């Protein structure tokens, strides 16, 4: 990298020197490797998503690329599998977002109290987070099997009153089973983020409230909850985006079955765009997904925006 240093005698005003032409070029040079990669592997693919959705693009095709107007979209909106996938994705997000963020907050409050062994508990709650979702999925697939651990424990705990089911092969239990597993895997991550938020709240506020006779519940609503505003936005947005992007669990555990009861938007996009090589149709599905993710995360930011600024 060329070093560009203007001779110290040229200017005595540091601002003038900093904004010299050569500094501009060097600044851009520092940013350019990242910028080039982001253009190649973010901006171009995102732009392509908008373009290819209106074409007949296939992954490998002898035919030339041709614009087909809204064909992919009319096909998508009349495809029952698309509506199934959309509904399943919404179902997953609507349950997982509140459950996972709530449970994570509960865990954070539980381990925020300093007591003997706190670090060991925090470490154990965090272990699933460093375990890959793919590994977790094959492990739980085994646990959910008909003669698997979950059913055996259910039987043992209820003295054979509850027999359990083949969790992943039952249309009404497959999605809830995947939800439980997904929360189990990721909740430790958000526990740590809540914890970081909790620790920014000054201890003195609690001490003052306790002196005034405020109950634990009052302290939570009037000190903890307002103090976690920024953390809350971050957690809601990240969990929602992750929940809407549900793919690996489905691909490893159910392949969208039984009877499409666990097919999701991303899973359907991969099935059409990769397995069936229909890039155009998959781009249309991705585009809908893109708009969905953006709308929801902007809406959440709006809902949890800084109320003091209004």
């Amino acid at each position, binding site marked *: 990298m060329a070093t560009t240093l203007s001779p110290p005698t040229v200017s005595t005003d540091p601002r003038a020197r900093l904004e010299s032409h050569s500094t501009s070029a060097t600044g851009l040079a520092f940013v350019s490797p990242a910028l080039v990669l982001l253009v190649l592997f973010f901006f171009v693919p995102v732009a392509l998503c908008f373009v290819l959705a209106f074409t007949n693009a296939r992954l490998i095709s002898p035919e030339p690329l041709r614009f087909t107007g809204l064909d992919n979209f009319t096909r998508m909106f009349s495809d029952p599998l698309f509506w199934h996938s959309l509904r399943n994705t919404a179902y997953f997000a609507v349950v997982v977002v509140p459950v996972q963020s709530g449970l994570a907050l509960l865990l954070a409050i539980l381990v925020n109290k300093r007591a003997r062994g706190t670090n060991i508990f925090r470490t154990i709650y965090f*272990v699933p987070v460093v375990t890959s979702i793919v590994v977790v999925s094959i492990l739980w697939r085994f646990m959910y099997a008909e003669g698997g651990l979950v059913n055996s424990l259910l039987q043992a705990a209820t003295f054979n009153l509850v027999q359990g089911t083949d969790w992943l092969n039952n249309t009404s239990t497959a999605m809830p089973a995947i939800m439980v597993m997904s929360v189990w895997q990721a909740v430790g991550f958000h526990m740590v983020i809540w914890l970081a938020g909790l620790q920014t709240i000054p201890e003195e506020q609690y001490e003052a409230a306790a002196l005034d006779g405020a109950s634990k519940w009052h302290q939570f609503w009037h000190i903890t909850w307002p103090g976690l505003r920024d953390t809350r936005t971050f957690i809601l947005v990240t969990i929602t985006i992750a929940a809407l992007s549900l793919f690996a669990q489905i691909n490893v555990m159910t392949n969208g079955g039984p009877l499409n009861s666990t097919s999701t938007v991303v899973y359907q996009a991969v099935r059409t765009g990769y397995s069936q090589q229909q890039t155009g149709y998959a781009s249309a599905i991705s585009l809908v997904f893109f708009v969905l993710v953006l709308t929801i995360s902007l809406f959440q930011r709006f809902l949890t925006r800084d109320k003091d600024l209004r």
Partner: protein
Amino acid sequence: MTTTALAAQRPARPGPRPGPQPGTRPGLPGIATTIGHYSGRIVLAAFFGFPIVFMFVSSLKPDTQIFADMGSVKAFLPVGDVSFDNYRTTLETVPAIRFLVNSVIVSGLTVGLGLVVNSMAAFGLSRMQWRGRGLVLSVILATLVVPVETFALPMLWWVNKLPGLTVQDGALLWTEGWLDTYHVQILPFVANAFSIYLYYSYFQSIPKDLDEAARIDGAGWFRIYRSVIMPLSGPATASVAILTFLPAWNQYLWPLMVVQDENLRPVMVGVSYFFQLDIAWGPMMAYATLITVPVLALFLTFQRAFIGSIASSGVKG
């Protein structure tokens, strides 16, 4: 395991106060609260820890033994017919070592290149004044809200069109398409807005006087970046390394689509080996253990840095 994870980051508080704390009553009710508190923690620890223990233990047993032990506490104990047979079977039937090497190469290079590219970008954005800086920064940060799943399929089509170079019969040839290579698994994940953001906010906390002093001593911008700023940014580098390594090691969707060649496949895609015909659960648990242990070992060794880096990711919404 006894190192303090987040505790060390808290502001120092007055030492343990003698006597009962405000809010906790002395005597029996206090003890009951403590017991309640601990039993809650222990039940949760069992919920989070036992499935992983079950995986380790099952990897040591033949399928008959696994199913015989199910439903009793023996499922979580390495007792009975215990051996490393499952590991031998796994290594014989699946190119597991090859997959592990591939994952080390891919995640190692993703982390290494990511540290350089993202810290340089953050340096240019935070230490230097230039026209268009604000625009570039907001364009980079805008990429944060878009998950890779939204554009993975168009990107698959795109990388299949990108030109590459290959050596065939001693001659350099242009090829079309990046599928079945290492770089298609690495390059899309090197530049990362979040890593740039982490470095950027860390660099902002380093006094600008240091740059000025170095410049007066005749150092160029690259010298300042390499010899002044980077050596002071160890904590940011650790965070970025961890936050890049975890998803790189755990990658699934992308390599599933872009790599068919067994010699280039990473560990997570390797699980599909076990989905054929009858599933032998013992060897599958052995494989799962094999690809989890490296990350788990890293986590337990650098626990404080791991949890600290995740915590730092949520500081600003």
